[in-house]
């Protein structure tokens, strides 16, 4: 389980960072890791790096 912080918390691209970045790196270095669950509360982020902007 992973909890994001800083600009990732609430960021529109957090899922890409997790799935296309962190998850692959972890799987490469720790093959036993089968997947990651994002337990971040993205609704409470106060300063996301990229805010979602569309309806």
């Amino acid at each position, binding site marked *: 389980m992973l909890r994001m912080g800083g600009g990732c918390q*609430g960021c*529109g*691209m*957090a*899922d*890409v*960072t997790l*799935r*296309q*970045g*962190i998850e*692959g*790196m972890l799987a490469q270095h720790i093959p036993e890791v089968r997947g990651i669950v994002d337990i971040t509360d993205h*609704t*409470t*982020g*106060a*300063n*996301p790096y*990229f*805010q*979602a*902007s*569309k*309806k």
Partner: protein
Amino acid sequence: MPRLLLLLPSTTYRTAAFVDAARRISADLTVASEQPSTLEAANPTGLLTLDFQHPERAAEQAHDFARRHPIDAVVGVDDDTAVVASVVAARLRLPGNPVEASQAARNKHRQRELLAKHGVPTPRFALHALARDPQELARAITYPCVLKPLHLSASRGVIRADNPAGFVAAHARLAAILDGCDADFLVEDFVPGYEVALEGLLVNRRLHALALFDKPDPLDGPFFEETIYVTPSRVPAPLQKSIAQCTERAARALGLMEGPVHAELRYNERGPWLIELAARPIGGHAELRYNERGPWLIELAARPIGGRCSAVLRFGDGVTLEELILRHALGMPIPSLARENVAAGVMMIPIPGAGVLREVRGVAEAKAVPLVEDVQITAHPGERLVPFPEGSRYPGFIFARGETPSAVEGALREAHRRLEFVLA
């Protein structure tokens, strides 16, 4: 495994839905965005930076990438990336919409020109230069009218004017919103009536109507903030068929061939081609008379429904709209295009006012309303909320499912009633 190039703007709400869908269908995924990812060097096949502002340049960048990592399909998720996707697809010789068609869908004036040329009922329109004297222009306009920017999304900058004074005021607001981004704007007749939205998928130019949404709250202006979408629609079946036919004609007029479309249409009792209506719009006992010319097409976009609204749609045994779109793009079998057999709805929570969001109260109480599945607050504490027409970012979404559209609509309204936004 086939490789999918997914074009995700860094500010979209749709990231999780599309990334999850790509994983479910076991596609090799490359996510392209206009901002470089910090982790791009660690996963050079999975992350890519493309110049979305310049589609031709993005196509060259994608072509370079595809020489090393062949791509089987490219999908955009919003108005802008739908255009980029078509340019990239053409460069890579992949299936997709013709570039001219996706550009026409993105430009409200070009879209109306093509719709009018092909006889699709659409409001009377005219293009005007923002620099032109609004007082002079106001004297030549037919009222009520609607001022529209050519490229903005989510009804941002769309303003109704009922008289010359209203037009001049609306013009000033629109000019401030555009702030030099566009030299022209659109003025079209205001079409009163009941509005619906059709979500569809084009497969080899044929439209498959996936869902028809009622918009039970009146959209009479002066601004056009959306609220509730509920499906299935309560309009009679013959009219639903007419709406789907109108949408398909519009898609053909623009030259769209493949992929998702989102259309917004109105019907009323006015006009030569139109649907005559004697209706009670909310509650479903609409008594409609209509003719063979069908409804008015207000907007057509070569993309799926906006924001998080797609979460209300499930097909077959639970396939999401995003999975369906990706399966179609990659030529994979689609289990079913039939929506699940329950009513579903979403409320785009109205912007409660101008100010800095301090707190949202009542979320747990809103989630406790029967039939409500989720309440997602997407605005962040400290975020400045900007009402329409200058703003367009809803502070959150409410989702509900139930046996009937009326029950779902009632649940959405009750949940919204329990929310309190504290602004400073």
